[in-house]
């Protein structure tokens, strides 16, 4: 990483606003401003068996108040991209070989480590899938929540604890004051995930990345957690990147969707359009494989085969061995992510597809 000395914005210790837990220390956010732009990102991993191309030219953007869902199976590169944005990618073996990640116009990848640290947690926060292994088991949750204020804002112990209680109340943990000294194992899975959310919200970031935030939870608890997240997002007008493989959760909360396959984005679309008319055979296959009422007793549609190994991504379109629309050109030529047009040839805003036959997929 090159050493560019950019001043760490509002990194000058606790200002008068900092004592306030909610509502202070934020730059005003106008809905629709691009907050984060990932551009042509390439990430490789050097492994014993060769070079795994985990991310191969991913571009997406999120605006304030917007929810982008990144949909993909394991190995599609969705989590690795998120780790690169957060700056928590293991390097080595990982290596960002190309591309940029701009947060409010500034490239995070060329920032000094110090400036980067000022962004991480304070401006961009992350919620992980497994709350039990993301929390420190030997420290009380109050201590771990308060750490955010002690480290980033120089708050004292008492003050930090007070803020931890407020945060726990914010994410609706019952009897927060009594439970602030409890340890992670004393909370249920849903409560632990709330604590993770509280920790991500602590410094009121502009952007939250939630990596499979509800995968480990039961559906009734999942509904509680997703509701809470949506409510807090609306209140603070945060951008949200939701990484998931669950088509149901995506349909519930997303504004726009990026579908990933083998390290590339194969389709982007606003949520309603993606579900109504997918423009990539992979998306179409995923949607078709959801059990539907009228298919009772029949075979489910199944995408044949398996996701490819990242060490040996098929040439041309990576989806070609599993696609039922495959032609010769799919084996030789990599399809670019191109704008999708409707039947009259008019541009469909926000819609792109990386399929040579998007037209046939969309309209056929």
């Amino acid at each position, binding site marked *: 990483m090159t050493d560019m000395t950019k001043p760490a914005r509002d990194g000058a210790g606790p200002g008068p606003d900092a004592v306030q837990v909610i509502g202070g220390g934020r730059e005003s956010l106008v809905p629709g401003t691009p907050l984060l732009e990932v551009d042509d990102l390439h990430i490789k991993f050097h492994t014993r068996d060769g070079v795994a191309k985990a991310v191969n030219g991913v571009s997406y953007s999120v605006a304030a108040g917007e929810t982008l869902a990144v949909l993909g199976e*394991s190995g599609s590169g969705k989590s690795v991209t998120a780790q690169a944005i957060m700056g928590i990618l293991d390097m080595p073996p990982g290596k960002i070989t190309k591309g940029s990640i701009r947060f409010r116009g500034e490239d995070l990848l060329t920032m000094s480590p110090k400036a980067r640290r000022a962004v991480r947690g304070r401006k961009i926060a992350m919620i992980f899938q497994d709350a039990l292994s993301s929390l420190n088991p030997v420290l009380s949750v109050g201590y771990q929540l308060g750490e955010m204020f002690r480290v980033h804002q120089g708050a004292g112990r008492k003050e930090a604890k007070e803020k931890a209680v407020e945060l726990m109340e914010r994410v609706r943990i019952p009897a927060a004051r009594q439970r602030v000294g409890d340890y992670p194992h004393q909370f249920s899975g849903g409560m632990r995930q709330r604590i993770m959310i509280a920790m991500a919200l602590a410094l009121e970031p502009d952007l939250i990345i939630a990596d499979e935030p509800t995968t480990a939870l*039961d559906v009734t608890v999942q509904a509680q957690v997703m509701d809470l997240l949506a409510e807090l997002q609306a209140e603070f007008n945060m951008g949200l990147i939701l990484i998931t493989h*669950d088509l149901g959760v995506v349909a519930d909360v997303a504004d726009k969707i990026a579908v990933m396959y083998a390290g590339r984005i194969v389709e982007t679309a606003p949520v309603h359009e993606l*579900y109504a008319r997918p423009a990539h055979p992979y998306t179409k296959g995923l949607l078709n494989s959801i059990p539907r*009422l009228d298919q009772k007793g029949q075979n*489910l549609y199944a995408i044949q085969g*398996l996701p490819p190994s990242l060490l040996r991504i098929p040439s041309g379109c990576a989806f070609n061995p599993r696609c039922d629309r495959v032609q010769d050109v799919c084996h030789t030529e990599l399809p670019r992510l191109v704008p999708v047009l409707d039947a009259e040839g008019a541009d469909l805003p926000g819609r792109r597809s990386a399929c040579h036959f998007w037209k046939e997929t969309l309209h056929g």
Partner: protein
Amino acid sequence: MAEPILEVKDLVKHYPLTQGIVLKKQVGAVRAVDGVSFSLTKGETLGIVGESGCGKSTLAKVLMNLEKATSGQVLFKGEDITRLSGAGLKAVRRNIQMVFQDPYTSLNPRMTVGDIIGEPFEIHPEVAPKGDRRRAVQDLLDVVGLNPEYINRYPHQFSGGQRQRIGIARGLALKPELIICDEPVSALDVSVQAQVINLLEQLQNEFRLSYMFIAHDLSIVRHISDRVGVMYLGKMVEIGTEEQIYSHPTHPYTQALLSAVPVPDPTGREHRERILLSGDIPSPANPPSGCRFRTRCWKAEERCSTEVPLLAVPSTLRGPAAHESACHFAEVRDVIGSG
């Protein structure tokens, strides 16, 4: 109705909680399964749904006789397997097999696929004589859609979906009549789940298998099941045909569970009615008195804390929608808008 292949009557499994090291004293019990009754006929699929901790996996273990039941009966073709031991138990176990959730930990990494699938034959040599075993294993691989030439490979050489096929082949080896599937697809990638579900259905038709299908994915359970049972905190709270449970749920817990499932269709999401339960599932070591769901229920009244609701057909329900529900105030509420 056809003769049931499996009949469970008032099954109870309590795990004792003890205190003291030398003089162990029982101070309580985790009531994992607490009075569950249902039956299953040949060729039928019974789906069991419920949140983690509701006792569905314990139920599976007791049915396999991997855990001894505290009380109650499990009648397999009329024979109570909770009382069996030795040769009798061994014979029954041949007919009840299990497919596990995690294909990564349920296959021994040091054994070849051939050894894994062939191991049941070591215990029940009468199914496949020694000379025929390799052939039998290759047939099984073929049946579950794997290349028979993979017989000498090791589990790590396969993907998750393929490993689950190996687990299914092992379950089929002894030609059982009942297979208990404990979350068989939840560890698999979305695009692979449909393949495994299709395989299970195809095998059911081919061999007239009965399935008990435990899962938390309600749309998959709906697709594969003939009947569905909903469990909460060790009790069966509602049971009926797939249509009765999904279109005419009467128990508040079933309604909340169904409404919490995210629908993979964004149309009309702003208007979707969702019942949000407050709080978490109580501890099965100390379940609420009366109805166990009352602490999270919006209908709860005085009566719910004193009187345990029995699993019975509510008097208000008539016609094809009539099915058993354990609620004092059972009434139909369409929560998924399927009609």
